[in-house]
């Protein structure tokens, strides 16, 4: 757990350093008072100081992280990564092939990755989750969903 917290503190430190740099480019103060960079600049400075303080506390074991260890279940993480990859691909395809076809690919893929092996169920869920959902939300409820470059 300690390593994870240290990594998070470093990531936050880098983020705040970036925000300090970016807000410095904006005006901190002008004739009317505080400028657009004022609030983010001082927030980032405070954040960077706190991130360093947290790192020091972690180094000196001053943070009570409990006894729980940071555990990543290998098979579980593999599934989560596969799901994430599927989501990224489906998102990239949304505007190209439209909601119906991207979901028609995504839903069966998700079910198969998560261990569903009944093909009839997979197909039914795929059609219901793509064409069915599109009909209910786009056609009936008028929720904007992408049709894709082919228009269907």
């Amino acid at each position, binding site marked *: 757990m300690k390593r994870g917290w240290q990594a998070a503190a470093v990531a936050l430190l880098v983020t705040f350093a970036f925000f300090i740099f970016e807000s410095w480019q904006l005006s901190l103060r002008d004739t009317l008072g*505080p400028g657009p960079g004022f609030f983010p600049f001082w927030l980032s400075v405070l954040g960077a100081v706190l991130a360093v303080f947290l790192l020091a506390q972690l180094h000196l074991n001053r943070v009570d992280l409990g006894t729980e260890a940071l555990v990543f279940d290998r098979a579980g993480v593999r599934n989560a990564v596969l799901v994430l990859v599927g*989501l990224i691909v489906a998102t990239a395809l949304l505007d190209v092939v439209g909601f119906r076809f991207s979901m028609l690919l*995504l839903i069966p893929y998700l079910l198969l990755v998560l261990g569903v092996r009944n093909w009839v169920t997979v197909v039914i869920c795929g059609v219901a989750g793509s064409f069915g959902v599109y009909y209910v939300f786009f056609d009936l409820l008028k929720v904007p969903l992408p049709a894709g470059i082919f228009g269907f």
Partner: protein
Amino acid sequence: MEGLQLLLSGFAAALSLQNLLFAFAGCVLGTLIGVLPGLGPAAGTAILIPLTFHLDATGAIIMLAAIYYGAMYGGTITSVLINVPGEAASVVTCLDGYQMALQGRAGTALGIAAIGSFVGGIFAAVALAIVALPLARFALAFGPPEFFSLMFVGLCLVTGLAGQSLAAALLMTILGLLLSLVGIDPVRGAPRFTFGVPELYDGLGFVPVVMGLFGVAEILLIIETPFRRMGDIKIKGLWPSRDEWKRSSGAIGRGTVIGFLLGLIPGVGAVIPTFMAYIIEKRLSKHPERFGNGAIEGVASPETANNAYANGAMVPLLVLGVPSSPTIAILMGAFIINGLTPGPFLFQERPDLVWTVIASFFTGNVILLILNLPLVGVWAKLLKMPYQYLCAGTLLFCIMGAYSLKGTVFDVGVMLVFGVVGYFLRKLNMPLAPAVLALVLGPFMEKSLRTSLEMSAGDFSIFLTRPISATLMVFAALIIAVSAFQIAALKSIRTAESK
């Protein structure tokens, strides 16, 4: 008297068929979300916001509020039947609720939870209706410095109560505030942190960020560690016996008061009232040894406190515009999406909406009682749903919700990025509540701060020379000092115990 008149007109609108339907739909969806393990009220409310896009503002808020308190009750069902809390506030219900289920008293446990939730919710709604108008009138005297100090107190409370490290909680708050500043500067109109990406000129969408942090992250965690499914527990006899009534009535009364009062304090969260109600009941009991072995008071008091808290937490949101928990922050986001800013001015600008929403808390609680007593068996059947379908369905809803907000794939990408961020933060037990609250309060805080400094020609003492603002600032400093002391004390106790 004026408050009563306004409430009656609110009832007239809340009892319209359309608004009753919205409250009913919200209660059903909320209970469904609460029943499904893993998906808490925050994730559920965030995921379901897009469903309300095409409703009028009143209908949307009524439905989302109903989703919120529906989810708070729904979590009880899983706690009692499979010993897995549907959301954090139901953790304590597992202790006695599951034991009651093992003894064949699952129906009674769910029955008393529904009745307690109803009593707690109705009492809190009455109290809200009484205090709302005077408090809102008082808050009308607030100028930008007072609002900044008030929001600062809210963030300090949430930060101070957020977990094992005050520094980590403050870091999360600052991160949330910084993310809220992406987009066009509200005072000067200059683009900030947009990198020439047109989609960022409107800022990071609150809904995609919250859907990612709560919805997608939650699903990734469920996929990594799937939850248990329900065994064959029979549900019969929802109505408690005379002896059980006798033991529960006091617990329900105390749970109501504890839940409502703690709901008024930003940052307390729903977990503390439920634990406090449980501990007090155990302390007051002549037979504390029954607790943990199926004591009905152990279900009645936390469940009542839970719902009284949910309704009580609406007071700081509606009256002061300060959300007290991530779910309430999401509700505030829904107000903003609908072009409304919660706070005292809303009572002047849209009294029709405010009082209809307040009246809907009464109708919603009645609907929940009707929905939960006879239909508890139906909800229990949902627990048999394999997690694979839950995950696929939720992710489908997340993609649809994030896209439909502005009709852009960019928001879906934002949601996925924050899903991964949320997954790691949750694995590390980093506090997410301060980040979400800061995300919603950030733009208001910055505007108040900069307007205050323009009023004082850049002099920060404006926050300490105005009485209300100064009092709030002193209070904020006290909160941080007390929190730091508590965390240090807790650590030294644990260190001593481990030695």
